[in-house]
Structure formats: structure tokens, C-alpha cells
């Protein structure tokens, strides 16, 4: 049954953003476009994207130049609270300019944290609109303190989604932090992992696997990125791009400046982890037997441990709605779980992300770009997947619709690598088979009961008839 997006009231601008995969031809929706106002898009702002990339850097001062809210909101990233400093712009700063206040704030912050290696100064909407000269202030402060003071030009409106924030954060890292160390020699058997934030211990799982191949990680951006590690990141033999959206621009920049080659990889799911290890092994000329041993042991062990959970998941239907690149990398993992992917979507994916997703899905899958809240509601109501995966905001809406939900980035345990796959299977199986979903539905309530999109109450119905 075709997903009736056309039935939604007069918004032709949304039409191309949903496609259904048909055999043979790639199904790429309209993407990368400006957000349509007023629709409840799930996207966030450029500052959010910059914080996503930079918050986890531990030994720098993160100073937000803006009013109270941006610092408060920006202090929680991936559900972890980080210490954030703020210049707390107030009305008179908006009128008379906040540069003096910013300068004083930077100096005070450096005194407060004398062991900090640098200062990152984030510009917010307010700072951008009042025309704050961040570069000059940062330069002056740098001279005064002897520390690197780096402006991050991230007012929220500087792009149509978080993606612009990821890119400018990558530029900041490339220009000021990566490869600034004095040692130039390449460390053999070393890698960086780009686009890896060490959620719930993912990085440890990846590291353990790489160690079995005799490799070590210099720096993970930004899950393990103290300034010292970033300074030496150019010495890695290879960059592994784990998340395309947050890692690729770093990889391309490092290739341009230092000639470091990069490899797109995924450690989610058995097949992908195996393929990634083989590709890395080939690159480093590792003995094939060793690689195969790691893969075999990992896979068989994971399959054995995951089997009781895979039984519960076999044939169940999953829908994924992520930021951008995870559609592709997690898509395979869900197929490994034996689930059918009936929908993949993203908030701000670009063409490359959708091409990747398209390769991972089968005929009949819905592919949707920048789905606003209501389109997700309708999808859930019409298709009723057994599991929806996405971010916190969508979780409670899905629950109200009676659909189990798995939050990404994950809340409980690592999902990367072979052991991570077992965790994914366990959590997905647990959520899908929770008794509450049976209890939620009383007898006689079927998906097409009153409340179905096509059985709306009078007011909405005659408004939709056109």
C-alpha cells in the first residue's frame, strides 16, 4: 500500500522527500534542502551540531558566547552533562555589544581552569546577529593568556540543520588542533577513528577488535580526543571513518594536508564488522588467517549468545529514523538481526547517505527525508512497525502510538563490534517483547479503529477534502 503522503493537506514541497524503493532503480529522495517552517521538523540548529562534535574534548574550556539558554542546552550532549562556561549575554550587551564581556569571561575562565589546553568560544544566534567580532576578541585573549583561543562560528541559523555545525566543527579541528604536534613520523599499525563518540563504550569494543589485528588507536573524534592525541593524529597510518556525516570532512581534510588515507567502515552488525576488519586487514597487510580467526571467533560467539534474542526478532519489522549516515550503517545491523526494514529515514542526510541506505534496503522499503513529526505519526499508525529507532524526541510519541522504541545513540550498552551486536539483539528483543504492549491494547482495538487517519473527526475531515 502506498504511503499516502499525498493525502496530507496541500504541501507539495514535501512530495519528493518520500520515495519507495523499487527493484533496480536507486530510490533517492529530495534531500539537503531548507527546512519547511511550521511543520515540526526534527532538525536542530548549527550550534547543536558544533556541540555534538566538540563537547567531548576534555581538556579545553568550552565557552558559549550567548544568552543563558544556549549554554544550558548545550551542556548536555548525547545525554552526558559537560561543564560549560557562558558569557551570559544580557540586554545591555545586546545593545552595546558583548565583546568586552567576552574578553573578560575568557580570561576568567582560563584563571578558573589553569590546566586547560585551549579555549573554544562558540558564537550563538545572538552573538552572530549583533555582529560580534569573535576573531579579534579571541586573538586578543590568546595573546593575553598565552593559550589557544579558537572561535567556533556557530550561530544556530547558519545552516538548515546540525550538518553545517558538524562541518564547521571539523574545520575548527583541522585548522587548530589536528596535527599541530612537533613529531612528524608516521606510527605504523596505528589508526584514527573519525565520527566515533564512544557512546556507552562503543570505542572500547572497536579498540579490542583492532588490537587483535595488532593495531592501536591514536585518536577517536571526538570520543577520545584530548588535545595531545589530536596533535598527533596526523601520525596515524589510516583514518577509519565510522560515521560519514561527522567523520568524512575530517578525513578529507587530513588526506589533503597530511596525505592520510581513509576508509569508510562500520562496526555495527556482524556482516559489517567482518567486512570492516577484512578491509582494514587488507590495508595493513595483516595475515589473512589472523583476520579470519578474529572474524570467525567473533561471529560465531556473537551468534551463539544472540540466538535466544534473534528468535524473538526474526521477521519483525523495524523502522529507522536517524540523523544522517546511520541509516546505512545501522540498516545492515538490523538485517543481521533478522528483522525486516520497512522504513529508513533521516533528519538531514544528503545524497551520499541515501545512496548508501538505498543499497542496504529491499524493494518496498519507504525512504523518507526530514520527516516531520506528523508524517512519522502517520507512518507508525499505518504501518505499525514492531520497533522504531530514533532519537529521544520521537520516543514518547512512538509510545503513545503503541510502537516500541529504541533510542539512538544508545542508552544502555555498546552496540559496536561482535559483542555489541549481542547487546543490540538483547535490547531490541527486550523492547519488542515487553508485556506492556500487549496490555496497552484492549480487545477489539484494531489499527483501523477511530483515530485512523482516514476516519478523522468532522472538522479535520472536511478540511482535508480537496
Amino acid at each position: 500500500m502506498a504511503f499516502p503522503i499525498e493525502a496530507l493537506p496541500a504541501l507539495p514541497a514535501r512530495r519528493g522527500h518520500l520515495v519507495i524503493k523499487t527493484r533496480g532503480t536507486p530510490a533517492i529522495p529530495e534531500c539537503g534542502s531548507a527546512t519547511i517552517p511550521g511543520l515540526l521538523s526534527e532538525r536542530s540548529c548549527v550550534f547543536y551540531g558544533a556541540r555534538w562534535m566538540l563537547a567531548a574534548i576534555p581538556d579545553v574550556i568550552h565557552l558559549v558566547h550567548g544568552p543563558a539558554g544556549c549554554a544550558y542546552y548545550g551542556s548536555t550532549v548525547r545525554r552526558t552533562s559537560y561543564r560549560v562556561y557562558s558569557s551570559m549575554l544580557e540586554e545591555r550587551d545586546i545593545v552595546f555589544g558583548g565583546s568586552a564581556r567576552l574578553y573578560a569571561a575568557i580570561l576568567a575562565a582560563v584563571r578558573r581552569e589553569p590546566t586547560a589546553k585551549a579555549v573554544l568560544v562558540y558564537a550563538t544566534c545572538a552573538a552572530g546577529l549583533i555582529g560580534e567580532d569573535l576573531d579579534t576578541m579571541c586573538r586578543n585573549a590568546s595573546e593575553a593568556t598565552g593559550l589557544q583561543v579558537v572561535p567556533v562560528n556557530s550561530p544556530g541559523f547558519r545552516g538548515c540543520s546540525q550538518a553545517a555545525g558538524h562541518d564547521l566543527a571539523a574545520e575548527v579541528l583541522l585548522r587548530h588542533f589536528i596535527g599541530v604536534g612537533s613529531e612528524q613520523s608516521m606510527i605504523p599499525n596505528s589508526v584514527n577513528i573519525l565520527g566515533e563518540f564512544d557512546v556507552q563504550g562503543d570505542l572500547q569494543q572497536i579498540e579490542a577488535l583492532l588490537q587483535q589485528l595488532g593495531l592501536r588507536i591514536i585518536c577517536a573524534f571526538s570520543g577520545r580526543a584530548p588535545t595531545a592525541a589530536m596533535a598527533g593524529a596526523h601520525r596515524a597510518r589510516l583514518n577509519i571513518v565510522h560515521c560519514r556525516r561527522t567523520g568524512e570532512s575530517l578525513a578529507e581534510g587530513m588526506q589533503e594536508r597530511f596525505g592520510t588515507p581513509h576508509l569508510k567502515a562500520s562496526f555495527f552488525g556482524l556482516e559489517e564488522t567482518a567486512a570492516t576488519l577484512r578491509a582494514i586487514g587488507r590495508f595493513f597487510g595483516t595475515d589473512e588467517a589472523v583476520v579470519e580467526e578474529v572474524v570467525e571467533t567473533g561471529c560465531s560467539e556473537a551468534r551463539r549468545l544472540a540466538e535466544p534474542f534473534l528468535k524473538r526478532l526474526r521477521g519483525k519489522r523495524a523502522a529507522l529514523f536517524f540523523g544522517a549516515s546511520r541509516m546505512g550503517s545501522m540498516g545492515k545491523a538490523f538485517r543481521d538481526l533478522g528483522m525486516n526494514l520497512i522504513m529508513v529515514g533521516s533528519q538531514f542526510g544528503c545524497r551520499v547517505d541515501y545512496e548508501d541506505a538505498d543499497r542496504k534496503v529491499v524493494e518496498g522499503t519507504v525512504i523518507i527525508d526530514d520527516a516531520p513529526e506528523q508524517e512519522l505519526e502517520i507512518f507508525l499508525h499505518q504501518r505499525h512497525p514492531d520497533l522504531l529507532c530514533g532519537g529521544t524526541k520521537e520516543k514518547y510519541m512512538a509510545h503513545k502510538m503503541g510502537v516500541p522504541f529504541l533510542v539512538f545513540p544508545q542508552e544502555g550498552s555498546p552496540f559496536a563490534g561482535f559483542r555489541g551486536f549481542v547487546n543490540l539483539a538483547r535490547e531490541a528483543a527486550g523492547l519488542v517483547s515487553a508485556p506492556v504492549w500487549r496490555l496497552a491494547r484492549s480487545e477489539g482495538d484494531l489499527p483501523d479503529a477511530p483515530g485512523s487517519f482516514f476516519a478523522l473527526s468532522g472538522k479535520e475531515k472536511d478540511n482535508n477534502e480537496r
Partner: protein
Amino acid sequence: MRLNEIPVDGVPYDRLKIDQIPASPAYAPRDPELVPAAGRTLVINPDRICMPIGAMWAVLGVHRAIPFVQGAQGCTTYARYTFSRIFKEPATIATASFHEDAAVFGGRRNLIEGLRNLVVRYWPEVIGIATTCSSEIMGDDLVSFVKEARVKIGEEIGAEKMDRIAMVIINTPSFAGSHVDGYDRASKAFIETLATGRDNPDRRVNIIPGLLYPGDIREIRHLLEEMEIEATVLFDISDTLDAPLAPPQEIPYYPPGGTTLQEIRGMGNALATFALQPAAGASGARSLERRLGVPAVVGPTPVGVDATDALLQNLSRITGREIPSSLKIERGRLIDAMADTFHHTMMKRVAIFGDPDTVTGVARFVCELGMTPVAVTPGTRTKTFEQEMDGIFAGYRELFLDAPRVFNGGDLFEFEEYLKTLPRLDLIIGNSKGIDISRELEVPLVRVGFPIYDRFGYQKRPIVGYRGAELLLYEIVNAILDFRYPDDRTQQL
């Protein structure tokens, strides 16, 4: 004596209590210039959010209402995350999606297009339009934009349908106040826009709860019910942000409940308006008083015996209804509980932080329990906080073991540094932001106020009224007991 130093045999029980170690024996005081917040340009760990989210909170309490935020996407998305984390509920909030072109040309196109899209996809009854620092700095003329939008949308959907949708503009520049002020401005905006007449005076009262949780609002409703008073609760989130899970759902999803448009329009007919949190809602109450002569009763937040007594007495005075025996029994039970637990609460030193009215309410209550508030800080600075605290402490100063330190609008860094200098601290009462301080000082945290995002159920547990005070009392005393006795010994109390 620490837990692992306790010998097993022959130790008298009274030697088995874990001594409260000084908060931080190795603590080296910070550079004093860096610590006091007044006059300091740098803020570390602020305990407040900016204005727009207060307005969004208010609009989410109105039936079939959707807030529309005239700003960049982060202002909305971050706020939706915040609501989701606290209430574990979906929050339907629309954004004007400012991109670079809006920064250059202004937000007119975004507003008009956004409102139109919101109307045809959601058919709300009320749209609360909150501005942000972006739109305020750019000088968006919202009044004329909204007028234009109404004409344009009216052409598309018909004037009759357009007339049924109310739009309220709330000016909430983030740099001019905190989330508390945002709620306050929303109360004024809604009342001035919608509660325009006093054509049918009745015996109802208006309640503007302020930033109280669903559990609190339900408790207020319980008090009103017992007194047989009909009330309009403006910004009633007790159902909209606490909806049941009972699929299938209507699409688009609207939670049940919320103050209806009709109720808001009728607020001018009431006997009086009770603003339970002076910093959040008094503006609305006073505006109604000024324009339509409906008396405004502002505060105090009804936490604890005295404040709840005051609320009930005011209600009784204004409506002429007696305070029923059922509520006197509830009061009696609270007093009974206070007497029973007094031995454990007396002379305990407690630090309180949060929104200003939550802090005054809780401070008043802990004084009633015989505790000494050693430090109080509201995240939002108000003009009257210090006076209010003086008034509260006036009757209790002889019982205090140390003089309380009253901050006004500082940040949590300053608060934390002060707590570390105290020789002894028994309890911290505040929101989830205090968990780090609590763990570091090894002092229990009782979670009260906004925001609580690291545990479940606190939005359902009231702190107002007699029953709410009782529940809060049990949490306070049990937190003290958990930390005070070794956990491998049962203790009869």
C-alpha cells in the same frame, strides 16, 4: 568511622553511626575573585534556561494549543528534548526554522509560511507564538506579521475557520530573563489577548500555577474540589504533559486536557486570580486586576503548613466557602508526620537551590521541620528574593545552628564552592543539576523542582498542599536515614 573501618564485634550501637566527614577536608579554597557571582562576567553551570521555554511550557498547558517559536531550529528542538526528558512525554512545538536568509531579511516569510503550514497540518485551537533572541534582535514586527498571516491563511481556509484559531504573541527575548520570566510573560500575553471581558461574573477563581508539575496541579485541584470551588487553571499541564498510553491515537497527536480557550476567555468573570508562584504568573494576575478589576492574590507557593494554610484561608475568604474537615484532617496528618519525624529532621543543615518560588516554598517548609537552611540560591535573580527569605527566616533564627547564606541569581559553581567550605552539610534539595555536587560532597540529594531529568516520577509527586508536604517530608527524612545508618543494619524507628 567509615563503613569499612567498623569492627565486627563488641561495638556499641551508638558508635556504629557513620560520622559525617567534613565536606571536603583536602579542599583548597578557590581564588576568591573567581567565586562570587555578583559582578562576575563568567557564568559556570547556570541553573536557569532562557525565556522562550517558559512560554512554551505555558502554551503546552492550553487545550489543543501548539507553541510556534520564531527563531532558529535549536530553540525549539532543545526545548522539546528538555520537555521529553523531564515529563517523558512528546512535546509538540513548531519552529519557524530561521536559516541564513532570515538573519538577513528578517523572519516575516518564516512566520507567515510557518503559521500556514502549522494550521493546515494540525488545526490547533490556539497558537502561542514565542519570540527568541534572534527575532527580537532583528526587530521582527510580530503584530503586523501575524495580522498578515491571518489574512493570508484566512483566504486559503475561509474566514470562519480562521476566526476560530486564536494566536497569542509572547515576547520572550532570551537575553532579558529566564524561563521563569518567559512563563510570566506568557501569562500576561494570554490574559491580555484573550481574557477581554467581564460580562458574566461568576463564583469561579482563576489559578495560575506557575512552573509546577502535573502532580502539583492535581493536588491544587484536589484542594479546590474539597472546598467545592470551581476554578480555571491557566496553563494546566496536568493532563497534556501526563497523558495515558492508550492506542490507537488520533492523528495528529494531541494530548488530552489543558485549559480550554473558552475557559481563558472567561477568566475576567472570576472572583479572584491566584498566582501561586509570584515570579511566574503574577504579571498575568495583576494585568487582569488592572484591566477588569479581578483581585490578584499573589503567592506564596503553597509548600508546607503555613503557606498551604494561607492559600486555603485566602480561597475561603474570597469565595466564602469553609475549609472542610477533610482538609483539616489532611493538615492534622501532616502535623502528625512532622512530629513523628522531628527527631531526624531537627537541626539538620540543608542547602536549597532551584527556581525562586520553589526555593522559597521549600525553605519555608524545612524551617517548619526544624532544619537549618545553610545556603539558598535561586537560579533566576528576582528583586524580592532576599526580602522574602528574610521574612521566612525571621521567626526561626534562634533555632538556626548557622546563619543562612542567601544568594540571588548566582550559578551552581558559586553554590558548590560555598558548600565545600561548610564544616557540615546533611542534605541538598534541588533539581537534577545538583547530582554532581551531591556525589562529590557525599551528601544526599532530594530532587525537587525544574528540571528533573535523571529519574522517573518526580513530576507526578506533589510538593504543594498538605499531602504534598507529607510526601516531601518522607523523602527528606528517608534520604537522611539512608545516609546516616550503615546499610547492613536494620533500624527500628
